[in-house]
């Protein structure tokens, strides 16, 4: 056990060093080829700047909030690089979007700080995250020093490997594969592959884009249909909703997510392979052909990293899509009873604690009917208590997935943080009293709202 901790620490160090080394090589080669070698120093300063982050993190206690924050910033940092490269690729595939920016980047005064900042943004979240991971490892191990020494050894080893290989690296050759967008895309991909921190973050790109899409489609289509549709129309009500359900489903959104991620790289690729080739001026047809050939082969080289990215995304999509989405946690409702007009839900008993962040459901049998209540702790520490039903869909209830509760009927993800808001596909909030031991709810409150759900009046009222 203890030796595996040491290995993991070493691995974390090694991984960070390899990643930094790889990015450095690519960036340096690129700068060499465009003859802006001087800029490369600012990348190193950026790494130094990023190092402030773990130094600060080491002074903090490891909390779930901290981990969540870091995990988010890793995703965000990836997204930043991806979006940047997408813009630049769009620029490269014929839409001259960024001429002004390109000119600005030609000036060292502008390029240097941008590079510095980007490099810091690139490394800071990863460094911080790995620091947290090391701190956690250190807690397991009797002698924390060993963990840190091992991690340092990993870093040293990784850097030494690059140092040893520096003569073998053909800077011009590597550099010929990269333009600015490819550079960004490639290092974004390195981040995606090696940026995750063992323990609490992996490649969450596809599912998170997918969830975003699901939410978007749901809100959008709901609005459209609320405006266009007569909800009481018996035929539309069932068939149409079933059909529209496809749009909210994981299949559609995962395809949409794939399309969104691939659209611009594919545009670029098609431009690289099929785009028009300028007819050069030359003395002989052979010379003309040569210039054209060089142009085309350069264009194809520049497409390599984009192609890699596309393949990577497709593979990730196949292996991940649906996986995280379908893992919906649906707890079994625990029975509760009504006593003198009040339902009392214990906050804690030997088998559970509703404040542990998981979704809890309780069922109340009353007047021969079963009504469900859901309880979940929000990020801010408050408990959210709602009916396990919304105003629109049939009351199938909700499941939990990552930071969302998901409507089982229509697959809409609702961020846990927004629970308590009424309307739409949100679970219907209940007015409750919470003391040290119990959640107290008025039965009449539950009854009135459950009746409202059952009657399907919600759909009418949105009209």
């Amino acid at each position, binding site marked *: 056990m203890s030796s595996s901790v040491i290995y993991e620490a070493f691995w974390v160090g090694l991984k960070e060093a390899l990643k930094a080394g790889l990015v450095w090589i690519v960036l340096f080669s690129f700068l060499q080829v465009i003859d802006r070698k001087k800029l490369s120093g600012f990348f190193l300063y950026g790494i130094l700047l990023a190092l402030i982050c773990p130094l600060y993190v080491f002074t903090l206690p490891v909390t779930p909030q901290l981990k969540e924050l870091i995990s988010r910033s890793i995703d965000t940092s990836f997204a930043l690089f991806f979006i940047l490269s997408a813009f630049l690729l769009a620029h490269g595939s014929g839409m001259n979007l960024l001429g002004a920016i390109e000119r600005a980047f030609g000036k060292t005064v502008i390029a240097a700080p941008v590079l510095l900042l980007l490099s810091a943004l690139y490394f800071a979240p990863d460094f911080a995250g790995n620091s947290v991971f090391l701190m956690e490892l250190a807690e397991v191990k009797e002698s924390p020093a060993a963990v840190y020494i091992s991690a340092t050894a990993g870093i040293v080893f990784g850097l030494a490997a690059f140092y040893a290989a520096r003569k073998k690296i053909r800077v011009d050759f590597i550099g010929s594969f990269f333009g600015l967008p490819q550079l960004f895309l490639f290092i974004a991909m390195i981040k995606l592959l090696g940026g995750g921190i063992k323990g609490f973050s992996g490649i969450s790109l596809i599912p998170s884009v997918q969830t975003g899409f699901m939410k978007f489609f749901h809100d959008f289509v709901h609005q459209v249909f609320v405006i266009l549709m007569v909800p009481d129309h018996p035929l539309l009500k069932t068939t149409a909703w079933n059909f529209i359900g496809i749009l909210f489903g994981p299949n559609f959104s995962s395809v949409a997510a794939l399309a969104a991620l691939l659209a611009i790289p594919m545009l670029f690729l098609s431009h690289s392979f099929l785009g028009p080739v300028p007819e050069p001026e030359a003395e002989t047809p052979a010379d003309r*052909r040569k210039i054209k050939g*060089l142009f*085309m082969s350069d264009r194809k080289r520049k497409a390599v990293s984009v192609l890699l990215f596309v393949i990577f995304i497709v593979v990730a999509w196949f292996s991940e899509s649906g996986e995280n989405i379908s893992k919906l946690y649906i707890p079994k409702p625990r029975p509760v009873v009504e006593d003198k007009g009040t339902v009392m839900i214990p906050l804690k008993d030997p088998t559970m604690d509703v404040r542990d962040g998981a979704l809890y459901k309780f069922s109340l049998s009353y007047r021969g009917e079963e009504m469900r209540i859901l309880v979940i702790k929000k990020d801010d520490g408050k408990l959210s208590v709602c009916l396990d039903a919304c105003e629109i869909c049939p009351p199938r209830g909700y499941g939990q997935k990552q930071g969302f509760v998901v409507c089982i009927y229509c697959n809409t993800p609702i961020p846990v943080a927004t629970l308590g808001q009424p309307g739409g596909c949100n679970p219907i909030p209940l007015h409750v009293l919470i003391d040290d031991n119990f959640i107290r709810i008025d039965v009449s409150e539950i009854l009135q709202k459950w009746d409202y759900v059952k009657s399907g009046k919600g759909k009418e009222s949105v009209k």
Partner: protein
Amino acid sequence: MAFIKLDSASKIYETAQALRGVDLEVEQGQWLNIVGPSGSGKSTLLNVIGGLDSLSSGNVVIDGAEITGLSEDAMAVFRRERIGFVFQQAHLIPYLNAVENVMLSQYFHSMSDEDEAIEALKRVGLGHRLTHRPSQLSGGEQQRVCIARALINSPKLLLADEPTGNLDRENTRIILELLKKLHQEEHFTIILVTHDPFVSQWGQRIITMEDGKIKCDEFICYL
């Protein structure tokens, strides 16, 4: 300065010495024929100039570039841009048709361009046999495809090793007329190896090789 300059070029094979200190200068645009008995070193001389063979000592400068020390791959790059070859045997790829054989040379040079290849074949009078395979072409036609292929990348130097060795007189004449026409139009340098006195009369200069040395060097009237 001369376009081609050989400086005491020697080539020693395991069993024989093919070149013994040859000094030679060829001007740009000149048509030079090399004659001599077999084993006199004329083919070796041609291959050395084309970089297919390397010298044992001495050096070769072509178009201002010293090719003696070049690596095999660097020589290949030099060759595809500046030199065209025609051999005694046609050496066409059997499963490719005429146009594709020409395009192969374009491909290694830079990129293939079908229209240009077709144009080149029309110029050697094969506009009607574009999609025929080598086996469907006569010897003379095959050799004309080879000429089109050799000239497709606009080389400055054409090296021909017994290009008419396998042809009858009629076809030999066609080939030579064609070379003459292209030479006059495009002014590339030709070095042609032959043992046929009829062929050697075409051109501007004849050198006679014997025993690895230049025995005789004469300028003739360009036909």
